[in-house]
């Protein structure tokens, strides 16, 4: 019977935003690995995701998951022109920090550190929040992402000017917008379908 919540279990919550690897516990029943059909497996795109309860829960709407995954991969992994990976991951981290998604922030802050080699500044974003001083270029990306993440959206000409002054061309601004915007999608799923664990 899947029309119930998962049983309540004792979990240890992460005490703060972190770059450490966290777990995630679903509140609704993911599909069992044994239940995954060809269509479910295709929607996961990467076979390794069958081990992950978050993706097995999203696989309950395989058409939506397939399209979401392919959108995600092009925004973050297509390196043809555009913004360096580190900056895309920074935008993902900034949106997650503002929305309060500890799990998403952990994954993408670690990616931002890995690609930028600026672990301490990334940690400052997690510790101090979106007003942390990270230097001109990153401040511009974080500020633009914050404006884009607010509801109603506050992103306008001022943010475009800020990004241009930080040296971003239009392909890079597109990537900054897409990366920050995408985490408004991701954060809301991660936050509302389960919880992070240490």
């Amino acid at each position, binding site marked *: 019977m899947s*029309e*119930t*919540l998962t049983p*309540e279990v004792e979990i240890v*919550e*992460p*005490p*703060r935003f972190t770059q450490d690897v966290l777990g995630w516990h679903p*509140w*609704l*029943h993911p599909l069992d690995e044994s239940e995954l059909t060809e269509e479910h497996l295709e929607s996961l795109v990467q076979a390794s995701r069958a081990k992950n309860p978050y993706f097995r*829960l*999203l696989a*309950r*709407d395989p*058409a*939506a*998951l397939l*399209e*979401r995954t*392919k*959108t995600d*991969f*092009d925004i973050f992994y*297509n390196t043809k*022109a*555009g913004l360096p990976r580190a900056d895309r991951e920074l935008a993902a981290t900034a949106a997650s920090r503002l929305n*309060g998604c500890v799990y998403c922030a952990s994954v993408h802050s670690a990616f931002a550190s890995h690609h930028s080699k600026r672990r301490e500044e990334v940690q400052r974003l997690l510790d101090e*929040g979106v007003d942390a001083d990270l230097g001109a270029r990153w401040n511009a990306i974080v500020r633009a992402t914050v404006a*884009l*993440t*607010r*509801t*109603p*959206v506050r*992103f*306008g000409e001022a*943010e*475009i*000017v800020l990004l*241009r002054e930080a040296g971003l*061309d*239009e*392909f890079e*601004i*597109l990537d900054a*917008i*897409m990366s*920050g*915007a*995408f985490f*408004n*999608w*991701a*954060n*809301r*799923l991660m*936050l*509302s*379908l389960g919880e992070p664990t240490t």
Partner: protein
Amino acid sequence: MSASTDFDVVDHLIGLRPSDRISAIRDNRPEAREHLQGSFRAFFEPRDDSQFTLRERFAVAAFVACLHGVDAATRFYTDRLLDSGEGSTSLLNVVLAESRRSATEGPYGQFRLEPAGESTTGSEYVIDSIGSVDVLGERLVAALEHTHLLVFHPRDASRTRLQALLDAGWSTAGIVSLSQLVAFLTFQIRVVQGLQALSASRKGDLS
């Protein structure tokens, strides 16, 4: 189910033509363009809408668009809600009245443990007008209340909130699709607004 949408919805909502500069910039991420549109189709041209009906999808979408105060998206989704059959006008009127009543600013909500000092409070949206409940029905009342949480204060989500959806007759698969649809729309609307700003920015022509 309705015929498939043969124009790019994001370009349409921004007001772009294929020859516009921003449309060409979007083509640098062809898979993102294709699958953003594919996501729209997965949500609004579903093969199976038994767990989350097409009419419910457009009602929720019109609510999300209106909560964001984005006219083009509000028009787009309200038009489709109006085309969703008998009683759609009264449903639309309630959705618009509820969104006007509940629109606020986000993100707010509680942080847990060490960052708890950063917590901010905002409204807790409950649909209690007898007229609204009567037109929406139990499932859509629960769905719109949950949608308001997802749009404005997603970090306040909890097991209890999902139980409320189950109690209102939503299945696990239906809740997954509802959550995906709302979260997707918060993305789609931000892409539209972000690219609209880029498109309107004249300096781009000079750089």
